[in-house]
């Protein structure tokens, strides 16, 4: 038992952090929200070059994986930098396509970042279905390559664009590994949410140092401190759940991680908005990029309620 990231994993996080910090990510997010994706795809290529998507793709298909712990390390950083695009969906696609069959032809492209995928379960929206080349629909008769998409709808997060996938298309797999794909998507989303929550806390701590009211930095007020301490506690107890789920990959652990990280990130967003005051309540200020994402990720790939139900279901089976 050694429940710690190793030096290589910590270095991987630092290098992604440095790369994303220098890559003008916030401008890419704002472009992406307007439907201008050139900067977003350039960022996507750099993330793929760093090996992030390859972590979800088996070695025999030009990937490095599957390596869920490293993937979690990467997705925390993607969340911390508010990276847009169908990130968890591409991971879910890799999990769906990793079995034998005609689908193999897509994996090398996903690992290298040449293509991006979205995945939608029956009756649910696909993220960025208008932007990707590979649209995967999980339908009653299996996994289909959707031929197109419906109208694009806005999300709570302007950088997330939602659409239904068109029916029909090539049947890729009659018995796809839906549960496995769901676990991977949930895990990646949980890690991303954790990163979003951490970024919100970090920015808020910096703000309450600077913002002076009643003659003192508001960060010296106990009401402010205690609210941020509670956010810190929630995030620090979500983190081991996310890493632990990556180690075990059980449905219950992944659901617990998603519920916990989603709620912690959301609590971080609420505190961030409150403590930034009216400044935080504007789209112009960059804080909004994380605030809106925290709200959207809370429901993506399993609401807190769905995830809690999964935990209860799994626990009932064990005992």
């Amino acid at each position, binding site marked *: *038992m050694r429940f710690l990231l190793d030096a290589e994993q910590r270095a991987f996080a630092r290098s992604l952090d440095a790369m994303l910090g220098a890559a003008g990510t916030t401008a890419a997010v704002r472009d992406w929200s307007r439907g201008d994706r050139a900067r977003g795809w350039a960022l996507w290529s750099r993330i793929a070059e760093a090996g992030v998507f390859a972590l979800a793709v088996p070695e025999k298909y030009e990937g490095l994986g599957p390596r869920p712990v490293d993937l979690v390390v990467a997705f925390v950083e993607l969340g911390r930098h508010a990276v847009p695009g169908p990130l968890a969906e591409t991971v879910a696609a890799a999990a769906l396509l990793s079995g034998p069959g005609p689908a193999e032809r897509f994996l090398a492209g996903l690992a290298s970042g040449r293509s991006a995928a979205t995945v939608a379960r029956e009756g649910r929206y696909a993220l960025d279905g208008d932007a990707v080349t590979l649209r995967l629909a999980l339908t009653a008769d299996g996994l289909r390559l959707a031929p197109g998409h419906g109208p694009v709808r806005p999300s709570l997060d302007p950088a997330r664009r939602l659409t239904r996938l068109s029916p029909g298309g090539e049947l890729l797999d009659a018995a796809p590994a839906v549960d496995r794909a769901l676990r991977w998507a949930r895990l990646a989303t949980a890690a991303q949410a954790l990163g979003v929550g951490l970024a919100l806390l970090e920015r808020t701590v910096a703000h*309450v140092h600077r913002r002076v009211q009643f003659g003192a930095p508001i960060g*010296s007020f106990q009401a402010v401190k205690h609210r941020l*301490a509670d956010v*810190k506690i929630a995030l*620090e107890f979500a983190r081991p*759940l996310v*890493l632990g789920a990556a180690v075990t990959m059980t449905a219950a652990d992944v659901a617990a991680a998603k519920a916990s990280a989603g709620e912690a990130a959301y609590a971080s967003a609420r505190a961030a908005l409150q403590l930034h005051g009216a400044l935080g309540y504007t789209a112009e200020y960059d804080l909004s990029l994380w605030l809106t994402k925290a709200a959207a990720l809370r429901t993506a790939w399993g609401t807190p309620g769905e995830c809690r139900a999964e935990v*209860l279901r799994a626990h009932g089976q064990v*005992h």
Partner: protein
Amino acid sequence: MDLAHSPADEAFRAEARAWLRAHVPARPLPSLETAEGFAAHRAWEAELAAGGWSAVNWPERYGGRDCGLTRWLLFEEEYWAAGAPGRVGQNGVSLLAPTLFEHGTEEQRSRVLPPMAAGEVVWAQAWSEPEAGSDLASLRARAVRADGGWRLSGQKAWSSRAAFADRAFGLFRTDPGADAPHRGLGYFMFDLRAPGVTVRPVGRLDGKPAFAELFLDGVFVPDEDVIGRPGEGWRIAMSTAADERGLTLRSPGRFLASAARLHALWQDRGGPPEAADRVADALIGARAYQLFTWAAASRVLAGERLGPESSLNKVFWSEYDIALHETALDLLGEDGETGDTPWAEGYVFALAGPIYAGANEIQRDIVAERLLGLPKGRRT
């Protein structure tokens, strides 16, 4: 990153499980907070000690198994999963013992620890005073130099277990003229039946004498019962307090077992949907605490020392414990209000969690100032 235990550790776990299965009382013991229950729990400690399980992480020469942090955590999981009784020796084992390992003399360790492990001497904590709870630096009870030792005088309050315990450990002011209030405190061990000691049991919320007030009037303590140097009591106590809030006071095993019982209770009551989210949160919280602790243990085993991070767990487990018991009482409805169920007893016990071991408000200040780097505020 690895959560699997070695075959040797799993064998240890299996050995603990088998012993507990053979020895844990079939029926719950009477409440630890009654004279009858205290005696029954003391007998249980002796039985644990006879099996070598009362302080598994201590060196063997003091009555332990020298088995390290990992196995201690595994033992605790098995202990609570087996439904074994609460530990009457907790204050001594989790607070005084680590202090003696770090700051005591070999003579003190070999004299104090074996009877503690055997439940022959049960220890109470005598830190708080009527005007000093979380602000320990404001302690007033004093120690005055005497021939061959010290004489202790003053009042201590809310001393857990002191109504029935044998001895106590606590802080007393050795140097009223010290340049700062937290310097000039000494760390003493004393006998609760010594001349000059008056113990007044105090009922907690449910009326059970779980703690006591202590009145000391010139109580003699020989030099060999002073831990560390007089004047260093604060520093020594703070290192113990970090242990208390950190890994050793509440092992995840207790909450994993409680969450499993809560889930069973929920199922027994037909799985009412209105409680489903809270039951799920109890399961998730126990798992989070377990994994958080394994991460902390991994760091300790890699040679790191836990610092202010222990304030994160103190707030987490104390709030968690209350939420879990509130959920159980809600599920029980009227049956919960009757007050003589283990859930009701656990609820009253849990209510103290955010108060002792440094109030949660102080812990949140520590998290904000020392982990988030926020500016120090005025506390007065």
